């Protein structure tokens, strides 16, 4: 195994560890940060970490990581498709992520709208103060 492959694989493992760490930090942020906007930022970070995790798991360690596009000449495939599928990166998690990104966008937009409404009604975004106002 060449040095390049080794570095690529180390980078891959490091990114998985980083994803786990970010997920933990962002959940902490959602639970503990009093400011509504910070909570929403933390939640989108959590969602994006989940997406990154999905893409990372779809990736395969070198050297079995060809792009998931079958090489063709004209319309004839140049390789055995079944064999090629076993050395190519799995494209399905990317498709899942595409859907999840759109959903996260909708949820974030809704939350931001609700937060604006909270600010209009209470004049503050600190959740601790909002709870006190409610009594």
């Amino acid at each position, binding site marked *: 195994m060449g040095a390049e492959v080794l570095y690529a694989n180390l980078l891959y493992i490091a990114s998985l560890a980083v994803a786990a760490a970010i997920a933990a930090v962002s959940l902490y942020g959602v639970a503990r940060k009093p400011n509504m906007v910070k909570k929403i930022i933390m939640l989108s970070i959590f*969602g994006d970490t989940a997406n990154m995790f999905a893409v990372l798991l779809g990736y395969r360690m070198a050297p079995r990581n060809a792009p998931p596009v079958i090489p063709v000449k004209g319309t004839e495939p140049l390789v055995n498709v079944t064999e090629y599928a076993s050395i190519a990166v799995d494209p399905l998690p990317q498709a899942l992520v595409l859907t999840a990104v759109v959903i996260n966008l909708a949820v974030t937009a809704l939350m931001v709208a609700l937060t604006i409404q909270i600010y209009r009604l209470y004049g503050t975004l600190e959740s601790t103060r909002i709870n006190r106002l409610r009594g």
Partner: protein
Amino acid sequence: MRVMVLAWWSFLVGLASTLPITGAFSTPLLWVATRSRRLVRAWAVFFAAATMLVAAANLYHLLYVEPGRVAVYYFGGWVLATNYQVGIVYTVDALSALMGFLAAALVFAATLYSLEYIGEGGEEWYYTLLLGLLAGLMGVFYTGDAFNLFVMLEVVGVSAYSLVAYYRGDGRAVEAALKYAFVGSIATTVYFISLVIVYYGLSSAYIVVEGERIPLGTLNIAGLQFACRVAGIEGAVHGLNIVAPVAAVFISMAVWVFMTKAALFPNHFWLPDAHPAAPSPVSALLSGVVVKTGLYSLIRFIYTVYMPSRYAPVAEVTGVVLGVLVVAGALSSLVAGFMMLVQDDVKRLIAYSTVMHMGYVAMAVGLGTRMGLEAAVYHMVTHAVGKALFFFSAGMAIMVAGSRSIDGLSGVAEESPVAALGVVVAALGLAGAFPLGCFSSKLLLYLAFVERGAVLLAIVLIASSAMAFAAYSKLVYALVFKRPRGGFSGRRPGSWMRIVVLSFSALFVALGVFAPYIVGGVVSPVAAAVLSPESYYRAVFMG
């Protein structure tokens, strides 16, 4: 690739969620084009009614025309095979059809009720969200794909969060909606992560058929069942050591998610804020069907995916999950019972009762017996009708009295007898009074617990019912026997609202009186369908 010709009625399966989503997206366009409130309302009622008819046709077909059949619809014509699992398939067995019909019927009733309940200003957006909620619910109950379930849970979620915040001038409603949105979207994101893990894990295991490697990685529910089943065959799966931990991680994360969605202790904290803050017809839907998406998904994963496996580690995991459900269910009903006793806000009282009833259903599902499953299904039906009736009639009473506290509702019976009748029938029925709806389902629950020798669960059932009875008696006493305190709001409930409340009262009584026929004609076939997971698998992969 397999080619197959679908029967005409299988298009009704595909129509069940595409019809309401069409209605949802066309409603605002119609409003912009015509600015006619009457047209928007008629449009919403039409789509809700049409969806209900489609759902009813599916239920009738699966119960009486072709009993034991599982209907499938492949979106986009992507027919699935075990070595070619691309595309989304809607797989409808009797349980899906029953839950779908329940959802569509409740949304239809809520739409009629809303015609007079929701005032001017933003009405078109209200019906858009209501139809969006219906589309999501039909998708959750009909889908045969675990990832599509995630998408549909989010559709339900986004519509539900917005509907909770419908009274956006009320800070408590907006705050409750935000809290609900945070909990809901964290839960669905965790579900997404669990799906990625199960997909990744299974795709590194494979079986060999005729010299060809077939990876097990899939997110189709029938495909997951296939993976769990072949794992039990000695030497069939290569890379087997990954299947058990993946199955365990997936189900433990998914159980947490669905317990949050179903508001089971200790993840019930969002429900008593979110459900009361919504407009009353929406509260009826949230407590009536939306929380049941969690329990439905649990039943689907436990009974359709995990139970058929003969693989020892998977069976072990299933046993643990069932135990967790029993414990969480018992704690939910007890905690909710205590909380009900101290509530002053009538809608919060009803919301805590939802936590209690979800606890009962979880206990029954956790028994893992046929009778437990029957009791769970029947209780989901009676609770949906009873809880919808409770919120519909309480909404009327609150409208008349202009107050949500129990004392503020004093003497509503004089002003609006229909509202009082609805509240009394719903309260007595949910507490388990003979011969109303939940009496028969609670009896079935009791028999299921005793049959399994779980006397402690039977005691929990009776004790929490007694607490609920005490909590309701305060409400019924205030409503019927107390003198009115001061004036009423002057608002009168409309005739559609009265019709909905009266017909749901009659339905709730009928669910109790005709219980033997309903259990024999609907609930038993549904339980039988859930307990024959092979037909679920066969329908998807072998047509």
